[in-house]
């Protein structure tokens, strides 16, 4: 293939496609990630885009990026800094300048680096690289716009469609740079534009011409070769966290033999879950776009009352609106899965940026004593496992479960080995007619299983189990509304104990790293990839260190207290102001080893920064 070029073998590389929000960078990035995964690399992606759909062309705030890290193995996150940047305009270069590694490659569209484009990026000189202090950078200037126009001159496409194919030309260049086989890319494009054959042809042409341009002109002395992963045999697909979440619900409904219902309202970055489920009528899924967030959750509560696996999907502001209804689900003791794809707050905050700032809201954001289950997914693929487990816990324990994911893992993707559902545990809801041992006439809606304290589920349409539930406190025996003081105390305690009992049904917290470590890094949810890599770096530098990434937050795994006590220092790293650290300190008041580490920038953790900061904390006396 190559004539006399240098092919450099590397372990991992981080690539960022960056341009206007209308430049199609998300598509280029997604295709490159998927084809790399199919090629056999590990991948981790990070779509980083603005809230504006089409910001003014060429402007700094309109820059949309898609970052992917690919490697032979051990790709735990989407990477801190980029090795290769594709900059479709000067703003894209400027915004990403600080994230470029020393010596990295920048491929840029010279057609969009004219004076007026530079002005839009507030670049005053004619040389943006010098002005941005990008001294040790391999610049690859390619007239992407004019080459794309020339490439598709005879395609019969309209000018605007031709210009839209710039992203494919750029993708072709990157494919060349990384020795990617073009057949896979062609096939992906055929799938993507299956309904528009004319576009398939044009996109493949632009892509191929981009590839050949790189090949023929020997743009750089270096291209990269990344080994393929030795992954387990089986079928794989590229999946992002939101889709995996939707799939987890479908799989759980299938396992439980129950109708799946979603009540939702569009909100960034959770909307994709609603969209995926409205498209799954082949599974009979009932997914309703309701009139607001409150109707999203209340319709789900109604469906739960009527016997469905009911869920609602949202992000932070939506969870705020759902608070009162969540309390109703706690009081009525109905199964419900609430998915909060966390985003930056408060209020509207930064809708497309990721944070872990909803933990307190999930734990405490309701009136009254209102305990429920909170779990957090750790990776895009773990969203599947977590949605399945959330459904299982909700159905079997008759409780709302909040599943916390975040924008980073919801939009990020990695290769997923298609699961064999036979390997998953059964889901058996406590239907009254199968579980209540006494006479039918003796049954009342708040009689419970002695061990789990779970009440039995009587579903409308079932003969002989008519009953009334609601938001008012009920007598523990008769199920009739009651404001008896002793009964209320009993019911408050029982609802709490019911949730605490769930610790018997979740795994113990595991620890990765050195067994003789005296520092434990603690994280929860979507920061797993970054904290794992940080821990491994620290270990490689000779430090004794371990990592516990929490997935079960309420209740905590049974061994949590014993585990935390073992270490001299426990660094609790979160993308909030210390909510999990405070939660742990509140639960285990004898602990004095917790050191919070917090970043709330709307961006993923940076491993290099974590390594540096954690080292300092570890060295403190």
């Amino acid at each position, binding site marked *: 293939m190559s004539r006399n070029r240098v092919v450099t073998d590397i372990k991992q590389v981080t690539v960022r496609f960056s341009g206007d929000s209308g430049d199609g960078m998300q598509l280029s990035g997604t295709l490159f990630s998927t084809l790399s995964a199919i090629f056999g690399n590990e991948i981790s992606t990070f779509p980083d885009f603005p809230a504006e759909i089409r910001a003014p062309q060429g402007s700094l705030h309109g820059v949309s990026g898609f970052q992917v890290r690919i490697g032979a193995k051990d790709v735990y996150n989407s990477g801190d800094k980029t090795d290769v940047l594709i900059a479709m305009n000067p703003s894209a270069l400027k915004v990403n300048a600080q994230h470029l590694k020393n010596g990295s490659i920048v491929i840029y569209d010279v057609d969009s680096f004219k004076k007026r484009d530079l002005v839009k990026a507030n670049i005053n000189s004619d040389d943006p690289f010098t002005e941005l202090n990008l001294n040790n950078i391999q610049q690859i200037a390619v007239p992407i716009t004019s080459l794309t126009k020339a490439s598709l001159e005879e395609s019969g496409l309209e000018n605007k469609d031709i210009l839209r194919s710039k992203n494919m030309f750029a993708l072709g260049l990157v494919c060349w740079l990384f020795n990617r086989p073009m057949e896979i890319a062609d096939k992906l494009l055929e799938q993507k534009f299956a309904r528009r054959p004319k576009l398939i042809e044009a996109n493949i042409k632009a892509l191929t011409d981009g590839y050949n341009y790189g090949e023929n002109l020997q743009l750089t002395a270096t291209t990269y070769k990344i080994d393929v992963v030795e992954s387990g045999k089986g079928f794989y697909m590229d999946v992002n966290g939101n889709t995996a979440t939707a799939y987890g619900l479908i799989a759980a409904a299938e396992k439980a033999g129950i109708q799946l219902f979603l009540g939702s309202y569009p909100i960034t970055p959770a909307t994709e879950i609603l969209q995926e489920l409205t498209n799954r*009528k082949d599974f009979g899924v*009932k997914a309703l776009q309701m009139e607001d967030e409150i109707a999203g959750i*209340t319709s789900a509560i109604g469906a739960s*009352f*009527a016997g469905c696996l009911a869920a609602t999907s949202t992000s932070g502001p939506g969870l705020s609106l759902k608070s009162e209804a969540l309390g109703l689900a706690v009081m009525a003791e109905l199964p419900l899965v609430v998915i909060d794809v966390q985003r930056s707050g408060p209020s509207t905050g930064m809708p497309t940026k990721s944070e872990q700032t909803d933990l307190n809201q999930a734990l405490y954001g309701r009136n009254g004593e209102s305990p429920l289950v909170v779990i957090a997914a750790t990776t895009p693929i773990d969203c599947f496992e977590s949605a399945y487990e959330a459904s299982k816990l909700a159905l079997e324990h008759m409780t709302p479960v909040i599943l916390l994911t975040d924008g980073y893992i919801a939009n990020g993707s990695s290769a997923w080995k298609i699961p064999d559902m036979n390997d998953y545990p059964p889901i058996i809801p406590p239907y009254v007619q199968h579980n209540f041992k006494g006479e039918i006439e003796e049954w009342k809606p708040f009689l419970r299983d002695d061990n789990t304290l779970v009440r039995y589920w009587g579903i409308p349409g079932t003969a002989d189990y*008519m009953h009334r539930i609601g*938001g008012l406190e009920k007598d523990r025996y008769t199920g009739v509304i009651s404001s008896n003081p002793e009964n209320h105390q009993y019911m408050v305690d029982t609802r709490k104990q019911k949730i605490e009992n769930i610790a018997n049904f979740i795994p113990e917290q595991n620890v990765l790293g050195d067994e003789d470590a005296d520092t434990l890094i603690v994280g929860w949810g979507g920061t797993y990839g970054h904290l794992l890599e940080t821990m491994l770096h620290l270990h490689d530098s000779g430090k004794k260190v371990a990592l516990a990434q929490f997935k079960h937050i309420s209740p905590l795994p049974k061994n949590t207290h014993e585990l935390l006590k073992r270490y001299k220092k426990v660094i609790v790293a979160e993308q909030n102001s210390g909510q999990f650290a405070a939660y742990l300190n509140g639960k285990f008041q004898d602990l004095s080893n917790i050191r919070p580490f917090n970043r709330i920038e709307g961006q993923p953790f940076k491993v290099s920064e974590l390594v540096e900061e954690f080292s300092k904390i570890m060295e403190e006396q």
Partner: protein
Amino acid sequence: MSSIETKNIDVKDIKYQKYLAKDFKSPNPIRWCPGCGDYAILTCLQKALAELNVEPCNTAVVSGIGCSSRLPYYMNTYGFHSIHGRANAIATGVKVANPKLSVWVATGDGDSLAIGGNHFIHTIRRNVDLNILLFNNKIYGLTKGQYSPTSARGFVSKSSPYGTVEEPFRPAELTFGARGTFFGRALDVDMKNQVDTLVEAAKHKGTSVVEILQNCVIFNDGIHDKITDRTWKADNTLLLKHGEKMIFGKENDKGIVLDGWNLKAVTVGEDGYTMDDVLVHDCTTLDNTLHLKLALMDTADGLPVALGVIRSIEAPTYESDYEKQIADVQEKMPKKSFTDFLLSQPNIWEVK
């Protein structure tokens, strides 16, 4: 096996099981104030359900918050007393989850027209097959006497000591604005018409709104007296019946006629009006202009308040169209196991 050929009859197909109103009564003690209009509504609902012959176990009554919303506790059906304003959205979930259920919503002017206004209009717009009993007493009773969204301008209450400075909602207008397919009205004390209207509401496929003019004896006693008091009732109300002349009055000699674009109450035989001039009620016209006119008739304008089924049209219901979409998709794409579904996706690859 018997050698005699018998036809297999599913017992469920036999309508032998006639329910009585008492079959819908729960043993729970009723906690409304003595003399409250809600007692009559509860009884009417139980009678209507018995007449409809639906099984108590296939009936779900959902409510929000307020005096009206205590109703599910007194029904021997499945019941859900929820949170303020959300009954219609919860009931939507119940009905879509299981379209076979007969789903009723007990709600009030505060619950559905103030805090739950959004759900009320969107439920109607979707035409989910729910039967909404809208108890309208023009007051907040459970919080002890504040004005409601249906209280008249200038109404003095605990939260409007100098009178309100806002216009009220008229439930019919809101229902029609949301493209409602069924609107009926009844008086709490008028059991016969109320039961009939509830039965019609249940038979109608789609969202049925029945405005029940209900008296709050404690905080707004007599608010509907002009139409409920026997002295004036016959002259101040018009019981609409589909296909029948709009005749009312103690002597049955008054009728509604068209006067330009407006409705006018006349006495047959006077001013040259004959029975031929009196309008015939058609609750099924798609155009709701006349229905709205009828529903907004007010004694203040010299017109009787319309009762009975004012509008009832056929239209697709949300849940049945949803089921149909699922059936259509499943016909084209036969249902697979989840794993098989993933394996059939175009974007998978195999590692050998």
